[in-house]
């Protein structure tokens, strides 16, 4: 996942600032052996402008040793009058946004359209069955559309989102169509929310279409998921929620998850993610190295 910040004479900037910056970014992840790139829907237009088209950008990464853009991420984390997954009146607008992104993927072989199924908890609560059903309806509709384009819609559950507990997740998947709405396992987000990602994978393995492998050192035991405007950024008790795999304090049981993935013969991509890795002086490049070291030296051996 292409959360990344790089340094420039103008301070920290996006890795997609110019072709030169993109070149350095892609070479870094390609050097470690990563083959796929997960990106955000909002980047596609910029990349198309920078390279001529999204397809030309994909060719650019292929020239540097990578294979393809694997997934595109879209979210409405913050409620607006025109966009809120739990408000049915906004669904047409959200659907049109999603359609535009999917059209932007033409010429590519994107496999997954990863979405946050809800906005923030505090803007959605009380989280009622009715609201979960409304959100399920939205993603059924979007999922049907993306499937017609050969792309799976898959839902990524933030610890601060409105579909965050085992009960809410269970209801959501029971009200969505398995043909249209898939499950996406973000390991750290689940652990922070107090859920076991291994148990969730076992429960939804037949609907699982992808993973974000990242770790955390903290479970949200104080209900900070409800803090406005964003619990990931301003929770009083935790400055940095997300960590790379392989730190001693990590709470995610990656070996157990890897064994489960093997047991169920998952076919697909495993994506490493570093979200806000620069908090407290870290950096994305180093986190990527440490994660890949853990993959090569710990997780890969589970498959040997």
């Amino acid at each position, binding site marked *: 996942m292409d959360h990344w910040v*790089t*340094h420039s*004479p103008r301070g920290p900037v996006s890795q997609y600032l110019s072709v*030169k910056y993109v070149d*350095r970014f892609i*070479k*870094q*992840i*390609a*050097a*470690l*052996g*990563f*083959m*796929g790139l997960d990106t955000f829907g909002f980047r596609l237009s910029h990349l198309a402008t920078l390279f001529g088209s999204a397809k030309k950008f994909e060719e650019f990464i292929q020239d*540097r*040793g990578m*294979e393809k853009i*694997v997934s595109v991420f879209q979210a409405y984390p913050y409620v607006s009058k025109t966009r809120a997954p739990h408000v049915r009146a906004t669904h047409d607008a959200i659907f049109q946004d999603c359609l535009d992104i999917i059209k932007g993927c033409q010429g590519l072989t994107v496999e997954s359209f990863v979405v946050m199924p809800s906005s923030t908890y505090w803007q959605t609560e009380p989280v009622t069955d009715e609201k979960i059903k409304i959100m399920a309806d939205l993603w059924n509709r979007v999922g049907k559309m993306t499937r017609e384009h050969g792309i799976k819609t898959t839902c990524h559950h933030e610890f601060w989102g409105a579909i965050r507990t085992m009960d809410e997740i269970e209801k959501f998947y029971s009200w969505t169509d398995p043909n249209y709405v898939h499950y996406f396992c973000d390991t750290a987000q689940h652990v922070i929310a107090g859920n076991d990602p291994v148990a969730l994978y076992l429960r939804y393995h037949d609907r699982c279409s992808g993973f974000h492998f990242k770790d955390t050192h903290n479970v949200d035991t104080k209900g900070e998921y409800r803090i406005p405007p964003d619990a990931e950024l301003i929770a009083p008790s935790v400055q940095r929620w997300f960590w790379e795999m*392989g730190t001693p304090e990590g709470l995610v049981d990656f070996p157990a998850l890897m064994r489960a*993935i*093997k047991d169920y*013969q*998952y*076919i*697909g*991509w*495993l994506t490493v993610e570093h979200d806000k890795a620069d908090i407290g002086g870290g*950096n994305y*490049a*180093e986190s*990527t*190295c*440490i994660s*890949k*070291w853990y*993959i*090569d*030296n710990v997780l*890969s051996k589970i*498959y040997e």
Partner: protein
Amino acid sequence: MFYPRYTNRKEPEMPNIKWGYAINQWNPVRREQQERAFKQMSVCGFRGVELNEGSGRWEPLGRPELTELNFGSVHNFVDFLHQCGIDQVASFFYDPGLYSAEESSYGRSPANPKDHEGILESIRTFATFLRDVGGSCIVVRPTGSYWREAPLTEEKFKNIAECWNKVGKMTKEHGIQTALHVDCLCAIHSMADIDKILELTDPDLVGLAIDTAELTITGIDPLRLYDKHFSRVKHFHFKDTHAVDTLDEYKNVNAEIQLLDGGGKREIERWFWEMGTAEGLVKFPALVKLMKDHAYKGWIIVESDRSPNPAESTMLNSWYMKYVLSKI
């Protein structure tokens, strides 16, 4: 069928070459910082490490005795490297002019015969360590900075050569090669100077280390130097630069601060770069081709000292190593 979409550790296909990385850009103090630095090298495909001489509280890996104090034994340190995915210590960089609290030395000069015994005994410690960890080379700064040592008289040259011949003989007895490393501030500063010091030293005892960026900044073409003295070249440092010291600012007092740290009158923002940047002046593919022609066998230590982001530099160098140089 499961297919994890990442590739595992893949070694570059250069059978005579061993790729290592210099620790100096990280300068890790705490154990977990050391672990992360070694893991970064390892995952990027570098199998050996070049340590950097240092002294005191900020340099726990800077001297063999500090390493032993920290790890309990040399054996424990090697185990630690292995656990991080590093096969071995390849080499140690040593500058006799540096302050050493452990030796009560405020810097010694190979040009001064009175310092020779101190230099010899100091390096003996490092040679012993390298022998014990399976290393192969002690990379030495042949003399101090130009602004301190110049002019290099015939007598000084003779003294410098004598110093390194003695050191080379001692390290050879430990199975360790001594290699002279000329940098962009060094008093040995021209092709003629290098010709001369090589002529005055025993080829069986003293070799040459080629640092691509340092020589380029100095105005020496590393390819030409290598082609001329390939039989003496025992070690490489690969790094790039975008600029040459055309104003001869190496001659200025405190050039270490004024030129190297401060960028000199042109305010060069960054002297050392990763391999593969568009503005890079070093012709690495041509150099590797030449190394292949001359059947160079040994370590290439990639270096990115003064990098603003060590991990990023290591990854970029890794890409260039795997996708460009290993294909030659």
